[in-house]
């Protein structure tokens, strides 16, 4: 939306399923992609984000607003506030949404969101039995038992400390 001089600018972001969202520019430019678009002159109109759907974009905007509301760069107390905001933001998400957030963070070039979501997913995968990880993320096992055994054998240098999986 067009801005008056001196007042904070608001941008309109449009998802790939035609939902529109108003965001303060100061929050939106946490995304390098959006920041570049603004610098290239898109600020006046609507910023189309072809690789993000409405539901995910709404979440991303919640994140942007939350983080940009915490002032200060580098001060330890502010970093803690940001961390606890991120933890809370991610704590309720299911794994499908987390994967969507990863894609969105990558497309929008938001490294802090990317790192936070990646860390969350990695935390779930860390040192867990294969069956557990498959269940959590809905990964379908398309190996035959022989193939799976062969892969494990190939990588036995990494499976030495592993107890047998609990079964799916």
């Amino acid at each position: 939306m067009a801005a008056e001089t001196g007042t904070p600018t608001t941008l309109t972001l449009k998802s790939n399923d035609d939902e529109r969202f108003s965001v303060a520019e100061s929050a939106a430019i946490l995304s390098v992609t959006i920041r570049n678009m603004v610098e290239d002159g898109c600020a006046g109109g609507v910023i189309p984000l072809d690789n993000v759907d409405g539901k995910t974009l709404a979440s991303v905007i919640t994140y942007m607003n939350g983080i940009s509301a915490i002032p200060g760069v580098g001060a330890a107390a502010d970093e803690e506030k940001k961390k606890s905001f991120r933890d809370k933001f991610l704590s309720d998400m299911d794994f499908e949404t987390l994967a969507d957030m990863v894609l969105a963070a990558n497309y929008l070039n938001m490294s802090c969101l990317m790192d936070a979501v990646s860390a969350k997913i990695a935390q779930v995968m860390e040192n867990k039995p294969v069956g557990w990880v498959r269940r959590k993320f809905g990964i379908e096992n398309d190996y035959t038992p022989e193939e799976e055994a062969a892969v494990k054998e190939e990588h036995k240098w990494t499976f030495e400390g592993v107890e047998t999986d609990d079964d799916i």
Partner: protein
Amino acid sequence: MQGSLCKRSRTPRSKKYPVDRLSLLPDDILHQVLSSLDFLDVVRTSVLSKRWRYVWTTMPYLNFDMDWYVQHNYDYNSELLGPQYKFWDFIKWALLLRDQSQIMRICLYSDNTITHQINGLLRVAARQKVQELSILDGDYTAYGLEFPRVLCDTLAVLTVNFHDTIPLRVTAVFSNIRSLKLTRVHISGNAAEKLLSSGCAKLEDVYLEDCQVGDLEQIDISAGNLKNLTIVNVCTLDKFWVVGCFDSKLRVCAPNLLSFCYIGPMLLGFALVDTGSLKNVTVRLLRVPKGYEDEYKNHGLCPERFIGFNNAKTLTLSTVVVKYFCPTYCESQWDTFLLDNVNRLELELRHNAGYIEGLINLLKLSPNIEVLVVRFKEDRQIPRSRKKSRKACLAIKNSSTWKSRIEAIACLSYHVKFIQIVDLDGTEIALELVKFLLQNGKVLERMEIMIGNEKKKPNSFFQPLNLPKTSEVVVSFPEYARRKIPWFDQGDSDPEYDD
């Protein structure tokens, strides 16, 4: 593998078995998602499904943690080789079996240092043009880490942190380095030049802690793009265990420098040159240790040794520095020393007249400050066992009194609008200082006082004091959490006994 998903029209699956979005992500994004995992876990993803089989082979972020490996892939009962040898075997397999694609980052935690193995890894890193390298938690080794020429050229981020000081051998200028964080590392003068000089055109952040820099009369830090510089307890080799002195000068020439923090022993001099962008400067000095005063009388602070600090917008000075500004303590003549560009002054004091006079002198030298923060340092506990010295200490403490006076000081008369007093504990000397600031602060708008002693209430201090009528000044007592200043609030770091 599941077929392509049309997200909107598919009927929602039951909660028990989520839709597998993760496997649909492209490899390079999966690499980022896995980038914080230990490589052991990354390789194990190969068993998840066919899609995942080769993701680990192109993984550009390698994390090797010896503790993690030993915990999760080593069986003490059945192994013949010691854990550190198996760990290095694992790393070699990892490097051999992955494809030879670019490695962006290697992060190594290994508290049982086998130097030649690490140096082997550095050679691989050189060949692979690794950009980020972290080597953490290692043990002492006399031999040292060797950085091949190519690696010096490609590294953008280097973090080294050992338990004991390890030598770092550097063969070429680090021309692409952006962030340097070295803890407990010994670098020769020659190496310092290759890491910190103008040849390091992209260098922005430098953090040095507990490092030894050998044989330099002057440490020159002249990287043209440097933004943040933090130096904590850097010493020359032979003086390392004598906390308190450093026989070199420090010269920083960095036109883009934003923040400079020095915590450590007295130097032979500071010079900040061509630092027009400077915002925050913090200087916390360690006192010359008892018994070394004569030997280090040349290390005292004076105007010739404290050059370039006027460029800072915010200047934070610790107790030892403040004391040097006290006219009766120090012979230095500070009259020509000017801090007229400083906007915000933060000073740390002890409850002693010398410090208060030092503060007043600093106020005189900073005519344009608008904000003043005074932090009182907690008095050290006097040990019960040393009764004789305890009496002496108490005697000194009791004899240190100071009374407020009316004095025209430029910054207080014309500029200071906001004063914050932190960790006020209600002693008379502290209250007299508050009185002084209120009496002489002609344009003061606001004062915040954080009481250090939770048991005491503000009114118990201020009523007996007969404060001047200051209806224009808002005095408040906000709640606050006492915060320990790292590297400074530990007793040993500021051993002043004879106050």
